[in-house]
């Protein structure tokens, strides 16, 4: 139920069932004339300007945005899927005073929960110099973007997902708007002379938004056991028939196959007009798009493509693409839609997506034979005949490939050679992130579920009820449970739906409200969402939906500590000295009084927001945690700096209290890249220290000279450094003995604009015995 008020109010389980149903449902969005919002706003603003005191000067935006007051406003609004920023542009070069030429109203501005995978859409109306406006866009922190106009909407598409917990600013620089538009639309009452003068903005426009706050990585990972996972809120990605297939990327976005001609950034689809030399290509009927988990099309990846599959790293995508002469190509594209390789050409589109085997081989079935090719298109193994549906699945951790072969289902060991036979009828192969294989084998009236922990030694763990079959096997992220689609084999059978089963076959539990509509579940890589199809009774087709899947956590001690820190921080942000001190023990009070850190903010300013960065066990004290928090300070409503505190939170009696504090120096915002999070992950026999930045960085500046772990004596620890520029993520692989270390990031790290870290960044790294 996740609402203490409702839990208190509805103790009767039958009432709770209704309440859960209501919480899992949302009323349909009311019909809304798309022009009504703008129409009403225009009327209101006219009235407001007449009745409210005039301001000395007006900015572009429908709120105060002079440089001194560009507050990254803390408005957390209901989750939307586009950042729509209202912009007012003033025309200059006219004979009368500047006036508003375009007034498009953003439904959402200064959002606090912008998804990291969402494009930024800025609607304009009226004449603007599109080229100049697009060229004038500057985004901070430094972010590689592409910009496209879709009608009067400027769509800014980040090349990579944005950083979480980060306030971004989008600036339109007025100096760049001097180019005349290729086809300017004259405004009414313009003279020929003024018509030649392009719209020029009066002052820089800066708008802000803040990305979502992801949960702090728990010390004890949550369990996805069948009885621990709750079906949360669901969301239809698009109307039935507008998405034909969908699959997750490792980064948590979606690869979708859409009918040609669907709207999105960059549409209309170029596939409609793409005509290579030689025989005419058949008219493409589908395209492959990258889509956010909320259903926002991000970009067209493969014109004329279908059945995409992301590589295990998520860096590239393989898909089928229509070609000349009724043939199809198996190709590889990057996530910007750039073609990387064309591997093979075959006579018709297969009925399943290509299967990645590691990062360098792809398996597919053509005309009843299994083929494995490398990324040059070279056949890597002799073709093998397949049977059944020719279903394939590759292990993510070993060179193992499960195949419905003609002689019977097998697991091929592509490394050591050889094969392992699976039970007759085995199909629906699914590999967990840990290398477990699951599959089903159906009989006349039911289905058996098998699990092979090492990918080979299988055992039957469960059977479906009679008159019911199981299919579409899907592992939970932690491999604790399996999600299956259920189908009745007789008219009297149980209604189709989804069911969760533990990996040992125990506790089959329905997932989602009782329904006749659910099928084809796919768990997102992080486990927070489940993708599935659902029958649309109104339109008669099947639509793709996602539902949040919330696992319970066993990390109650750390959660208690975090809850006390949350109360402490809220009191500080509210300026409530008494409530803040109530979260401190005597040593904590003494620490703040001694000036270890400021309890209520800097002189003349206040704390505006915070977020927890890390939580880790304290190395020296039992029942104690070290919680790192990042705290933002503001003056006159303007967020201008942040610093970090390391809070030692200790269990005292029944309650955690803050016992000690260490604070970093304040760092100014908007002055180069900053560290968003530091995470220490156990990866036996060593550890990984993962450092995430907010900016696109110059990869050559991320090195062992600029990112280091030092021991208690200040000596640099041996480490292997890797850098994932797309996720702004530097990973140090280290082997540390129990103790306290220091992570150091120097000012040698620079963003893509050559702006360096404003100050050296230090953070403690604690390794518990």
């Amino acid at each position: 139920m996740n609402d203490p008020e409702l839990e208190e109010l509805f103790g009767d389980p039958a009432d709770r069932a209704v309440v859960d149903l209501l919480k899992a449902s949302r009323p349909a969005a009311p019909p809304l004339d798309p022009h009504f919002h703008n129409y009403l706003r225009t009327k209101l603003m006219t009235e407001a300007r007449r009745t409210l005191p005039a301001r000395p000067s007006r900015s572009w935006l429908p709120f105060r945005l002079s440089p001194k007051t560009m507050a990254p406003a803390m408005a957390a609004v209901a989750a939307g899927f586009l950042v729509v920023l209202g912009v007012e542009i003033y025309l200059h070069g006219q004979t009368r005073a500047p006036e508003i030429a375009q007034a498009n109203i953003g439904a959402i501005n200064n959002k606090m929960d912008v998804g990291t995978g969402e494009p930024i859409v800025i609607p304009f109306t009226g004449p603007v110099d599109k080229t100049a406006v697009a060229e004038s866009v500057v985004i901070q922190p430094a972010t590689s973007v592409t910009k496209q106009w879709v009608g009067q909407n400027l769509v800014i598409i980040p090349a990579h997902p944005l950083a979480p917990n980060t306030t971004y600013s989008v600036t339109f620089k007025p100096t760049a708007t001097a180019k005349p538009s290729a086809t300017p639309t004259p405004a009414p009452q313009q003279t020929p002379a003024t018509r030649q003068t392009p719209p020029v903005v009066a002052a820089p426009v800066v708008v802000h938004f803040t990305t979502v706050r992801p949960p702090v990585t728990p010390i004890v990972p949550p369990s996805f056991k069948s009885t621990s996972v709750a079906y949360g809120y669901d969301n239809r990605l698009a109307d039935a028939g507008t998405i034909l297939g969908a699959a997750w990327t490792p980064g948590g976005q979606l690869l979708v196959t859409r009918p040609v001609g669907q709207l999105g950034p960059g549409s209309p689809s170029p596939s409609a007009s793409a005509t290579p030399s030689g025989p005419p290509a058949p008219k493409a009927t589908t395209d492959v798009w990258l889509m956010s988990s909320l259903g926002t099309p991000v970009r067209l990846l493969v014109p004329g493509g279908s059945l995409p599959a992301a590589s295990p790293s998520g860096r590239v995508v393989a898909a089928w693409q229509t070609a000349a002469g009724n043939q199809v190509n198996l190709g590889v594209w990057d996530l910007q839609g750039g073609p990387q390789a064309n591997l093979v050409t075959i006579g018709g589109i297969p009925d399943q997506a290509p299967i990645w085997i590691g990062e360098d081989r792809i398996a597919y079935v053509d005309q009843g034979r299994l083929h494995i090719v490398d990324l040059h298109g070279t056949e890597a193994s002799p073709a093998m005949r397949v049977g059944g549906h020719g279903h394939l699945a590759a292990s993510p951790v070993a060179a193992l490939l499960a195949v419905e072969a003609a002689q019977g289902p097998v697991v091929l060991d592509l490394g050591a050679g050889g094969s392992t036979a699976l039970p007759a009828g085995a199909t629906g192969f699914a590999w967990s992130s840990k290398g477990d294989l699951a599959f089903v084998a159906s009989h006349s009236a039911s289905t058996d579920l098998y699990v092979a922990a090492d990918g080979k030694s299988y055992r039957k763990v469960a059977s479906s009820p009679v008159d019911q079959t199981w299919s579409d096997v899907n592992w939970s992220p932690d491999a604790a449970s399996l999600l299956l689609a259920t189908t009745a084999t007789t008219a009297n059978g149980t209604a189709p739906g989804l069911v969760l089963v533990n990996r040992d076959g125990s506790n089959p539990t329905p997932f989602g409200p009782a329904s006749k509509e659910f099928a084809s579940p796919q768990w997102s890589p992080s486990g927070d969402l489940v993708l599935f199809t659902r029958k649309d009774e109104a339109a008669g087709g099947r639509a793709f939906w996602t539902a949040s899947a919330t696992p319970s956590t066993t990390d109650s001690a750390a959660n208690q500590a975090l809850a006390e820190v949350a109360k402490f921080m809220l009191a500080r942000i509210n300026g409530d000295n008494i409530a803040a001190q109530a979260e401190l023990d005597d040593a904590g009070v003494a620490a703040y009084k001694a000036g270890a850190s400021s309890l209520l903010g800097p002189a003349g300013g206040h704390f505006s927001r915070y977020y927890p960065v890390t939580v880790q066990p304290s190395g020296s004290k039992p029942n104690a945690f070290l919680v790192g928090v990042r705290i933002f300070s503001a003056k006159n409503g303007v967020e201008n700096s942040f610093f970090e505190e390391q809070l030692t939170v200790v269990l005292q009696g029944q309650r955690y209290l803050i016992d000690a504090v260490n604070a970093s120096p304040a760092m100014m915002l908007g002055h180069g890249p900053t560290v968003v999070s530091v995470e220490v992950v156990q990866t036996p026999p060593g550890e990984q220290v993962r450092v995430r930045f907010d900016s696109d960085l110059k990869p050559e500046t991320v090195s062992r000279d600029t990112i280091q772990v030092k021991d208690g004596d200040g000596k640099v620890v041996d480490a292997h450094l890797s850098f994932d520029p797309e996720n702004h993520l530097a990973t140090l692989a280290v082997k540390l003995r129990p103790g306290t270390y220091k992570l150091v990031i120097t000012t040698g790290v620079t963003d893509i604009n050559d702006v360096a870290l404003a100050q050296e960044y230090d953070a403690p790294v604690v390794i518990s015995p």
Partner: protein
Amino acid sequence: MPDGFEERDLVERAKQDPEAFGALYDRYFPQIYRFAYSRVRDQSLAEDVTSEVFFKALRNIKRYTYSGHPFSSWLYQITLNAVADHYRGLHGEVDLEEGASLPSTAPAVVDEVVRRDRSRRVWAAIDQLPRQQRAAMVLKFSEDRKIEEIAQILGKSSGAVKLLLHRAVERLRRELPPEFEIGVT
């Protein structure tokens, strides 16, 4: 939820600054329109009510004082009054206490029940609840308001709101179609 500091600052600025008022409008338009529609079930009427709410807010914002509740609570109150005013205009004084009957939208809703999916059917059932119950249910389950806030919006005590919610859920249990199979899971 909007940050309290920031919202208060924005509201204070909106008392003098048209652009700040515009920002408030942008922020709260979706939920006020949605709430208005949930009360009147007519697009044109919902537009009228929404328009009236924001013009009233503009006219009276200088008198608004922060009372510990979100600014949206005030807008919800104006919405309820605007809806009541509308029906008074149509039908004379209308008792807005629980159980009062208004022009029924039942035929359309029944059509919806037949055609639409499960979620819509549940909400269609909520549409059939008495007005105060419906308002409390919409504010709680669609707008995610706290009980104390709902109480302030409806001008009732928290206990009365709890009673409204309880009665509404009990009634839904009785009236939802059998295929919903609501039971203990």
